[in-house]
């Protein structure tokens, strides 16, 4: 095991995050604050409670999740895309480091950063609303699991992307809409049919639901199903990453 190599990549990626600290942390904090002001304060006063939870508090898990998904994907994708773009990927490919070790470094760092962002948003939320967490360990567990799954997904996007447009395509045009339609601002029980059924095909629904359960003890879909969907997505991404390295797709000639 090339632990020095894994550590080198991890530290490099964390240092890159620190260089762009403003963008990495302030943006999600600002967005969360705006969401609380607009949806929690201005509009939320007209919605009293959702499933027995104050609407402002109800928003917290969904908002954390939505930032987490976008940040994980963009962070991990740029981490591997940038060396491809600048040509420094030659060093990674010529190094005595396995595919697994390389992913461990890149995805590990992206996951760490996402979890940190999630916790910062949670801390920001407490400034606006009362937040209670019924299952703190499960909350942390899902935070890490989701960050990991979407960082892996981001890694794949970074390898796949041939230009900056493609790099931004998935976070902006796929992840963001899915997040908005994934029950961040509402409970899917509030939707009329057939939209309620349609929305069950959106994987983000399961992530938000199980995360909300860890806060308030209730979710839109059963915990076990949510967990299974999250794990299935994680394994799918892991499988794709392994295939990428075995074939050298878009990394090697």
């Amino acid at each position, binding site marked *: 095991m*090339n632990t*020095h*190599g894994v*550590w*080198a*990549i991890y*530290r*490099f990626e964390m*240092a*890159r995050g620190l*260089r762009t600290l403003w963008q990495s942390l302030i943006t999600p904090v600002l967005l969360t604050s705006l969401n609380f002001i607009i949806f929690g304060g201005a509009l939320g006063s007209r919605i009293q409670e959702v499933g027995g939870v104050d609407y402002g508090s109800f928003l917290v898990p969904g908002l954390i999740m939505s930032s987490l998904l976008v940040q994980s994907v963009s962070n991990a994708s740029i981490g591997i895309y940038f060396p491809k773009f*600048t*040509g*420094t990927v*030659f*060093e*990674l*490919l*010529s*190094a*005595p*480091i*396995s595919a697994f070790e390389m992913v461990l470094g890149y995805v590990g760092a992206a996951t760490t950063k996402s979890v940190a962002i999630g916790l910062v948003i949670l801390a920001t939320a407490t400034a606006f609303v009362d937040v209670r967490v019924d299952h703190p360990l499960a909350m942390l567990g899902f935070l890490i699991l989701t960050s990991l799954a979407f960082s892996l997904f981001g890694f794949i996007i970074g390898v796949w992307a041939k230009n900056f447009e493609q790099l931004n395509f998935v976070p902006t045009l796929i992840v963001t809409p899915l997040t908005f339609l994934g029950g961040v601002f509402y409970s899917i029980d509030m939707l009329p049919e057939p939209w309620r059924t349609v929305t069950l095909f959106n994987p983000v629904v399961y992530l938000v639901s199980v995360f909300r359960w860890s806060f308030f003890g209730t979710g839109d879909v059963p915990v076990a199903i949510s967990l299974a969907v999250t794990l299935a997505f994680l394994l799918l991404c892991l499988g794709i990453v392994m295939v990428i390295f075995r074939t*050298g797709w878009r990394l*090697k*000639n």
Partner: protein
Amino acid sequence: MDTILSVKGVGKTYASGHTALDAVDLDIGRGEIFALLGPNGAGKTTLISIICGIVTPSSGSITVAGFDAQREYKQARRRIGLVPQELSVDMFETVLATCRFSRRLFGRAGHDALIEQVLRDLSLWDKRDAKIMELSGGMKRRVLIAKALVHEPDVLFLDEPTAGVDVELRRDMWRLIHRLRENGTTIILTTHYIEEAEEMADRVGVIAKGRLLLVEEKGELMKRLGKRELDVALAEPLSAVPPGLDGVTLANDGRTLRYVFRPEDEGAGIPALLRRLEAAGIAFTDLETHKSSLEDIFVGLVHDGVHEREQAA
């Protein structure tokens, strides 16, 4: 020869059907400086990239210090340092940080004293805290060399190390290469500057259109293929080459007799020609000889090699 790198039947054909490398066999001895010479697009970088693990070969096998480059890639790659042709460096990193990164990436524990030594050797120590984007092109190339050396490789690949580099840096680079060799590092460099191969290499390989045309000790190559040229300044200009003088042409409006010969050919050589000139009653005022450089040899080889292949096809 104590072989440190062995390349057997390595070829590369891209999905487009283009064959960049055609069944190359090559053995490199420990501690030697080997120059891979060839025109642009000959396959030099492809061969290096395959050995270093950046390009997957279509056929063949490679061992580095006895380790299979595919199956035991970790052991093999640990022993290799690569300085690429392109100035691919992390612009936002500092010189010191990027060197530390490279050392760890290659599985070595931090060793700041060694990194300091490498940076000092490359006149980079004063720039250690500078961001790479602030450095000149020549300095960036030095950084790439430092990055390739900090994990203490046994074999160093230099892909066109002096392309686009000023004279001073080129001299520095040559000195560095000699110093590395003294420490036992094996060096393989690609170049299309013949001067570079002539100056530094122990052995030379000539590659063109994906084929390794020959591998030979530099001195041997010069001796075997090197022609000598004798210019005889004539007292009176001639209108035609006198009969009985083989291999002689007229130049400079008939004022110069040019004689091209291989020293080992029987009956050739300067004394023989001079005797024949005397017998023919031709007076001369000056003599000038020079040997053909590696460049002439190279141009001839590549031309013949390509010509032969075209005829075969």
